[in-house]
């Protein structure tokens, strides 16, 4: 017996969950998969069972609404499920997922990919020190556990996320040592007109910044953390003023703190789409390499649809609508007529995407930030490869992400290259004076997530898997 569904959706954030709901409303059986226990994605991550009661937040409420919608629908949700392989089999898509310590196949007639994003962190000396977390990573602790990475926390990075993280640290009772951000106040003033259609978000952001200023927390505009001190745990950081292109200038100043949240924008998580055979296109304004897709999320591969941040960083509000579009598109592929509803959704999506891409533009690192990665800085965390080691490999003839990967194992470690490949690709491009668009990411290989050998060797029982509910008539 093979687990079967009309439509499989990978990722249950605002995009994937809404894709699943939209497709299920068209009468198809839908299976929604996510590696978290509950739907919500990173942006609306659910609280753990250790939290018995806590004040409401906009993110928590939005996530609860989404989780309720999925629960009340005919969508079958499989949580704690990690998809590690995607392959075409007999005209359908076969997914292999790891769930409950076992791996099992799932066959679907159409596939919606909503794998979201991961964080880009420009490596600086000491960024591997325990106590350094990604900015987005820190929000996972806040949302899931209402916990902090330390007591006196330095917050450093680009875009609106630094201010959200700083505000959450203060809301959860921690001390923000300082906010260090490459953006200038002028950068923010320039995007104010684009933010006016979302006065709620504009006011919320203004409140975060006003709170820091009223409480005497230093905000170092147009600065970046350039090194982390401490060795086996964070003791403090050095930071420097940046030029308009974000290259470091001026003398280093010091800050004390016991942890650092560090991030420089989001990158679409495209590996699942690549495995399904979707070609990539380079769109720096959307976060880099993006699976080719039309405005409704249809890709060049029949039966494969993509939505949300994994189709380009446009933010949660746009992802909700994009998910509905992609879900309806998948339904259309299986015979439903969803053209009218999609036509109505497109302008709503375009409006939400305009706000989202404005925030993306603030978050994308400018060229000079690459200079923070010194010769001795570890770039590939898994294999402890420094910039100079990777530069030597490139100088020795490695002219592609694949060549650096096979020659040096940069990107072949446990993380699968998720935290080094962007930096490595930019080094290759810079070495040859080529455009970043000429240096695509490495060819993805399964498993998409680590799979224990014992699981691959062992067998599984179908009775451990959820059986999809029949679609409503």
């Amino acid at each position: 017996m093979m687990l079967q569904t009309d439509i499989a959706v990978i990722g249950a954030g605002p995009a994937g969950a809404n894709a699943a709901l939209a497709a299920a409303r068209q009468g198809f059986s839908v299976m929604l998969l996510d590696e978290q226990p509950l739907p919500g994605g990173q942006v609306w991550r659910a609280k753990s069972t250790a939290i018995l009661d806590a004040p409401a937040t906009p993110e928590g409420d939005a996530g609860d609404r989404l989780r309720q919608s999925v629960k009340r629908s005919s969508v079958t949700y499989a949580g704690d499920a990690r998809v590690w392989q995607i392959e075409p089999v007999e005209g359908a898509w076969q997914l292999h997922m790891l769930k409950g310590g076992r791996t099992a196949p799932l066959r679907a007639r159409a596939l919606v990919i909503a794998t979201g994003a991961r964080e880009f962190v420009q490596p600086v000396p000491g960024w591997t020190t325990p106590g350094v977390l990604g900015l987005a990573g820190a929000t996972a602790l806040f949302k899931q556990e209402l916990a902090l990475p330390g007591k006196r926390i330095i917050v450093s990075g680009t875009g609106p996320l630094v201010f959200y993280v700083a505000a959450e640290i203060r809301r959860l009772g921690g001390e923000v040592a300082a906010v260090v951000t490459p953006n200038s106040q002028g950068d923010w003033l320039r995007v104010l007109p684009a933010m006016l259609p979302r006065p709620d978000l504009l006011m919320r952001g203004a409140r975060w910044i006003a709170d820091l200023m009223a409480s005497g927390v230093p905000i170092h505009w147009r600065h970046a953390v350039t090194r982390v001190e401490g060795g086996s745990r964070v003791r403090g950081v050095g930071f420097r003023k940046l030029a308009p292109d974000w290259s470091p200038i001026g003398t280093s100043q010091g800050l004390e703190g016991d942890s650092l949240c560090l991030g420089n924008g989001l990158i679409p998580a495209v590996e699942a789409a690549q495995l399904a055979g979707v070609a990539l296109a380079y769109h720096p304004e959307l976060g880099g390499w993006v699976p080719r897709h039309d405005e409704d999320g249809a890709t060049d591969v029949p039966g494969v649809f993509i939505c949300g941040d994994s189709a380009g960083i446009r933010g949660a509000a746009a992802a909700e609508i994009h998910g509905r579009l992609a879900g309806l598109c998948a339904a259309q592929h299986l015979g439903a007529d969803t053209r009218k509803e999609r036509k109505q959704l497109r302008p709503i999506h375009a409006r939400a995407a305009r706000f989202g891409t404005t925030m993306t533009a603030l978050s994308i690192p400018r060229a000079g930030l690459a200079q923070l990665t010194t010769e001795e800085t570890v770039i590939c965390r898994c294999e402890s490869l420094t910039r100079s080691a990777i530069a030597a490999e490139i100088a020795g003839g490695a002219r592609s992400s694949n060549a650096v990967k096979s020659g040096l194992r940069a990107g072949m470690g446990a993380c699968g290259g998720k935290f080094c490949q962007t930096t490595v690709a930019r080094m290759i491009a810079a070495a040859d004076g080529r455009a970043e668009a000429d240096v695509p990411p490495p060819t993805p290989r399964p498993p998409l997530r680590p799979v224990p050998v014992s699981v691959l060797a062992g067998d599984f029982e179908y009775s451990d898997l959820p059986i999809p509910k029949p679609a409503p008539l």
Partner: protein
Amino acid sequence: MRLVPDHSGRIRRSALVEFTFDDAPVKGHAGESLAVALIRAGHLHLRDAPEDGAPRGAFCCMGLCQECVIGIDGLAVESCREIVAPGLVVTSFRGRA
């Protein structure tokens, strides 16, 4: 003056339970992520990088980077995706490179 209220006093958590980390007793709230319980107890250094032995700890907090991997029942697992339970025996990957 605060414009962002301090909510820390209004959060109610599950009961504390005890587990061990490299034989040292650690308390965590039942059901919370192991990485969070370890951070709260001051155990930030969870493993040594295999190539240069440098100290590492939780980084991406979403199951991608593999930096927070610890040992449970002989398996290497991500502490950000494991859950605190009473009596859990957790080992670090420090000093084993």
